[in-house]
């Protein structure tokens, strides 16, 4: 699993590759803490090359989401793989933020 994060003004762009699971979810947690402490008001998640996410990874995203929207931030999944799109739809996370496929 690999995470690339770039913060440019109000926009934080995060690209996650591979499988996000309990073994590496803490890396995501650290990166998300960096976004929370930055001035970025929008997090654009690119999950096109993310092959799947375990519930631990989902938990980290949602904990961040809760803190981020409290600060006025927004999340958008700008691209996602079929597996991740299906997972987010199944868990109804697309009701919390925009999730785009492909």
């Amino acid at each position, binding site marked *: 699993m*690999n995470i690339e994060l770039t913060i440019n003004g109000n926009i934080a762009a995060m690209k996650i*590759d*591979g*499988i996000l*699971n*309990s*073994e590496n979810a*803490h890396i995501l*947690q*650290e990166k998300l*803490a960096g976004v929370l402490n930055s001035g970025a008001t929008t997090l654009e998640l690119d999950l*096109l*090359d993310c*092959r*799947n*996410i*375990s*519930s*631990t990874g*989902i*938990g980290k995203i*949602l*904990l961040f*989401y*809760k803190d981020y929207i409290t600060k006025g931030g927004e999340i958008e999944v700008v691209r996602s793989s079929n*597996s991740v799109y299906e*997972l987010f739809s*199944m*868990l*109804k*996370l697309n*009701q*919390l933020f925009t999730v785009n496929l492909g």
Partner: protein
Amino acid sequence: MSLSTKVLVVDDSIAIVNSLVAILGISGFEVDTAFNASDALRKIHNNAYDVVVCDIEMPGLTGLEFLSKVRIEFGRELDVILMTGYLEHDYFIEAIRLGASDFIRKPIDTKLMIRSIRELVQRKRSRSDLADFYTNLDRAEFSFVMSPQHFSKYALSKIFSTYLRQSFKVAPKAMNELLVCVDEMVYNAFIHGTLKLTTNERAMDHNHLKTLIEDKLKEPDISSKRIKLNFSVDNSSRCIEISVEDEGEGFDYKYWLAQAKREPIAEIEGHGRGIAMLYHLCECLEFSEAGRKVKVRKHLGPDSHNEAV
């Protein structure tokens, strides 16, 4: 088992890709193409290739970066031949370090390339005796007992995926889903069943959580517990059964299973997400032993090599 050889050609030059598709196709290989390394990575996650032939100098991810990602995800299992117009010493050393299977200098000597692909496939097939053995069994069963002290040392899903890939033909989508299932099952057995961590403890930052886990593992009643992982593969039905059992207190699995079967609602701090995922990713999800044991059954997906015939 099919003897057809699937080759993925990766180059940003349309002319080189087209010419390799024609030459390798005439030589009897089944050829697929990608025009950049990111596209190639997506393709190898969704298809079973025997060999990847990749240019080193490409815009975006380079051939060396691509090779590095392949080695992280697949180990040494997938052969990658690198093509390059020049072979500087440092490049060469780095490619060897990353595990390139062979090099082909540009302009390409096609006879050399075909020979290299054939040799790599031959070598791979002689390595795959173990896979043939497992594939030809009616049923294979494996059982592991783990001490919680050693649990954190290993990336268990990586070990599991390497083993499954080397021993059985698992479709890429099914493999991704299986890895998530194993992660859910074993992590729950460790975090809930063995360590009894609370929601607040699990939400701690990594370093504090690591310290807390290390302290808990020193407690005799926790360190004496064991986690059992069993899996069996039935080749006639192409199904895998995985069970994980901990020595904790169990939980009200009937309630959570009923919740998982209902239409999920969007919740930020909801519980039972892992069970809902297992329920949706597998054909069968069962709990027993008061919730200490969880078992899933899942189809391994189409055998892509045989389907290609």
